[in-house]
């Protein structure tokens, strides 16, 4: 086998906000193998959850990830409400779906911007993030914070969306719709973006099934799954919308799915607002006194895919076991298929295409010092010493 050079991407790389180490084993410009090293993001959340009361866990899980900050409380609420066996009022269902879809909008805009940035297309980055701001302003108006909204509680929602706020929401939505039209035009019709993303990072349908990937990553390869339709929850069965899929499985298809999903999200929110106006203001929760013994499964469709929470209750005020599976856990593993055989520059956009959220992926923890002596170089040193350093790195024979 020919010698391969190791190019680390990360852990503290300017391309990624989160620390992750991807070791690309390259032969010339082509990536032959990829190894993923993690552990930089461990915070011990599953264990911390066992020390907190059910109500406090909501604040903990929404900080698993800032971008999918609603999806984790959504899934957790679904699982605890399953243990209790309760149905929440319709107004709460509409509010939950509105917050969930607003989050999808801001997350997809964020991704479009970052994808543009990785391709070197900074204009897309600036414009996508500029039009993300009105959505964050909406969050601030409704919940008090631009991120980490603390809207969920067992049995309903913490705050109401008063009917007087609805016109402001509708105004922002029509602005976002216009700007999505613009972004779709800019991205879908641009020949440079076509050249950089079509045929790049392909995942076939069989790959998706093998890795059990979810979300837009799966839907872009023709796998028609979406928790909101398959196992409906909150207000999704009460409104009309469709699941977007594509067939090609490349980065372009993933971008297409995400952009078109934004239109569906806007439509869902509009319908939920209509539904909200019909419900009585103030009926936002059903009071729950006690969580009985048992276990519950809750899943929700986050912007990245299915987020799954499994809660075991022993009748006390804290969960006995809280298992969290974020969509990125299965999606990131697909890089083994999508990056191998590509050039290094294509590998970075393929990695970004699954919209990885590393803070969702690692949450577990505990003590003690490292025992292995092996030192991992970081990308910063590569920039400085380039050729000299690449020779010193591990050579894969």
């Amino acid at each position, binding site marked *: 086998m020919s010698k391969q050079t190791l190019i680390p991407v990360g*852990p*503290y790389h*300017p391309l990624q*906000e*989160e*620390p992750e180490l991807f070791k690309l084993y390259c032969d010339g410009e082509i990536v032959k193998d990829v190894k993923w090293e993690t*552990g*930089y*993001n*461990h*915070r*011990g*959340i599953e*264990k*911390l959850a066992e*020390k907190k009361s059910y109500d406090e866990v909501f*604040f*903990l899980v929404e*900080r*698993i*990830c*800032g*971008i999918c*900050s609603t999806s984790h409380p959504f899934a957790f609420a679904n699982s605890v409400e399953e243990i209790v066996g309760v149905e929440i009022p319709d107004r709460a269902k509409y509010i939950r779906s509105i917050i969930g879809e607003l989050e999808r909008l801001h997350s997809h805009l*964020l991704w479009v911007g970052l994808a543009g940035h990785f391709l070197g297309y900074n204009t897309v*980055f*600036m414009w996508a*993030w*500029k039009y993300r*701001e009105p959505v964050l302003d909406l969050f601030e108006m409704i919940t008090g*914070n*631009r*991120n*980490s909204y603390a809207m969920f509680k067992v049995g309903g929602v913490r705050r109401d969306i008063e009917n007087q706020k609805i016109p402001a929401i509708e105004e922002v939505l029509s602005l976002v719709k216009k700007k999505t039209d613009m972004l779709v035009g800019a991205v879908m019709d641009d020949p440079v973006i076509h050249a950089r993303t079509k045929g790049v990072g392909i995942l076939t349908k069989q790959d998706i099934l093998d890795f059990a990937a979810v979300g837009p990553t799966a839907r872009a390869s023709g796998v028609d799954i979406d928790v909101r339709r398959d196992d409906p929850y909150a207000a999704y069965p009460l409104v009309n919308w469709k699941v977007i899929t594509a067939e090609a499985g490349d980065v372009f298809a993933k971008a297409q799915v995400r952009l078109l999903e934004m239109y569906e999200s806007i439509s869902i929110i509009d319908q939920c607002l209509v539904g909200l106006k019909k419900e009585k203001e103030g009926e936002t929760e059903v009071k729950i006194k006690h969580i009985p013994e048992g276990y519950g499964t809750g899943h929700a469709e986050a912007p990245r895919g299915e987020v799954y929470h499994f809660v075991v209750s022993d009748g006390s005020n804290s969960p006995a076991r809280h298992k969290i599976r974020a969509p990125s856990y299965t999606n990131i593993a697909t890089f083994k298929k999508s990056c191998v055989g590509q050039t290094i520059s294509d590998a970075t956009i393929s990695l970004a295409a699954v919209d990885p*959220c590393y*803070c969702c992926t690692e949450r577990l*923890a*505990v*003590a*003690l*010092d*490292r025992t292995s002596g092996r030192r991992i170089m*970081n990308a*910063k040193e590569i*920039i*400085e010493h380039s050729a000299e350093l690449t020779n010193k790195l591990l050579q894969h024979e």
Partner: protein
Amino acid sequence: MFHFGGASCNNCDIEILDCLTPRYDVERFGMLLVGSIRHADVLLVNGSINKKDKPRLLEIYEQAPKPVLVVAIGACGCTGGIFAEGDTFAGPVDKIIPVDAYIPGCPPKPEAILAGVVKLIGKN
């Protein structure tokens, strides 16, 4: 400015990145995000630093050309936030490297981040 994200939830990272975007536009203050610590005057640190990040944070601080100003961002950067009770927690930032400014918030709004950094640079 060089950005080091420790074990965080990403909210602060996104708000820092938001400072580059048209509404907040940090470049008009003469600030730029760089790819290498050796080109930076300011080190932005956020996240609750875990045992794996700690040696790397120290390394980055050592490699920074002095003088360098360190800014701890967010509740996690300042005190460890909600993750301080976790078992892999090895921070907060000021237990590992000296910090010149703290910007609290969960996450702090971009206005707060800009105000904090501008104030720090004005003082120095």
